[in-house]
Structure formats: structure tokens, C-alpha cells
């Protein structure tokens, strides 16, 4: 049985951070007409990003619509893409 949270050194495997959840908030207001950005990681989907940032996966179309200039297929995003989060 695999031991959870093994150190990478002990297992010899590279740790997988693809399902890391993140977010931010500020006491300062956001500038008008300005959106936050997110850099796509391996394993990300629009639903996952929507769930992490909006708390609900069903908001993925908002991200898709805000990034139509770089996303043709909502099921296909690439690591390193910098997405606007409206």
C-alpha cells in the first residue's frame, strides 16, 4: 500500500501539482475593465478552473467566452496559456 504524501526523494517520482487549487482576494478594489489572469497547468480544464476561482464548475463558459481569441475548443486548453478570468 502506497504511503500518502511520500517525499519525492523517497519515491523517486516527480510530484504532481496538477490538481492544486488556488485563489486570491484583496481589500483593494479591482480596476475597472480589468480582469485577473490564470496560467493553465497540466491537467487543467475550464470546469476545474471555474470551480477553483468561482466555486462552481458550471461557470466555465464565462472563461471560455472571455478567451475566445485563444480557445477554439473548450475541451482543449494547453499548459502555459494565460487565461483572462472575468
Amino acid at each position, binding site marked *: 500500500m502506497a504511503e*500518502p*504524501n511520500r517525499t519525492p526523494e523517497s519515491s523517486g517520482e516527480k510530484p504532481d*501539482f496538477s490538481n492544486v487549487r488556488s485563489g*486570491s482576494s484583496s481589500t483593494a*478594489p479591482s480596476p475597472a475593465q480589468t480582469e485577473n489572469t490564470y496560467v493553465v497547468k497540466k491537467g487543467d480544464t475550464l470546469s476545474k478552473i471555474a470551480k477553483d476561482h468561482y466555486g462552481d464548475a458550471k461557470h466555465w463558459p464565462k472563461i471560455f467566452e472571455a478567451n475566445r481569441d485563444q480557445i477554439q475548443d473548450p475541451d482543449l486548453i494547453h499548459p502555459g496559456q494565460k487565461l483572462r478570468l472575468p
Partner: protein
Amino acid sequence: MKLNHVTAVLSLCFVLAFASTACQKSQTQTSENNTGTATEQQGTANVQVERVDLGKHVGNDNQVTEHAETFTPNETIYATVVTQGSATTAELKTRWTFQDGQVVDEVSRTIAPSGGAATEFHVSKPDGLPVGKYRVEVFLNGSPAATKEFEVKRA
């Protein structure tokens, strides 16, 4: 009479010298004002990162309520960036990296602060963060502003 003429010439020279000095002073002040205006036009130069706090919880004011530099795998790690200054737009970015250099996550937030502000960034991993040492780098408008290190240990 001749003496009066000399006095008048000297007085005129004195007045011209004073006016010249005053003029130079005025030019200096104008130059300083121009510099100030240029700085203001950048819009973000007046914002500075005052400090970065790490912890396990934040309050409604985004300030860390439980400071920590050691976490367990299933805890959420908060980094609150405290800034001072005002700007129409300023981008804060955090880059979280594992000890092997692998980027765990990058999160950015654009703010329009007017005075002090606290911006929190957080990361977690549903199946637990691998134990080891981590680093979070904070960038303000693309320039490195602060770095904090922390460790994840078994519970």
C-alpha cells in the same frame, strides 16, 4: 552726482543678480514638479510591497490570523501581501515553487489600491501537498518584490 550714478548702477546690478537667482530657483522647482508628474503618470510607481505574511487562516480584512511557516499536507496555505500606496492599476503575482524547482502554481491579481491594502493568495491540494520545502515569490508589476519560504511536514 557721480556718486549717485555709481550707486544707481550697483543697485541695478544687485536687482538683476537677485532676479537671476530667483529665476534659477523657479526653474528648479519646475523641474522637480515635472519629475513628480512623470512619476505620477506611471500610475503604479507609488505602490510598494510592505511585507508578506504566511499563515493558515486569514480574517475578513485578509490579514493572517494564524501565522505559520510549517504546514501539514492538507492545510490551505495563505500568503497575504500587504501593500502601501495608491495606483490606478497594479498587478500582484505569486509564484509557488517546490523544492525541486517545479512551479506549483501562479496566481495574479490586479488591484487599484488607495492607501494600505491586503491581498491574500492561497493554495491547497485536495489529496495533500507533498512534504518538502516550498517558496512563494511575490511580484509587483512583474518585478520581484518579496520571497517567503515554508515547509510542509507530515501531520
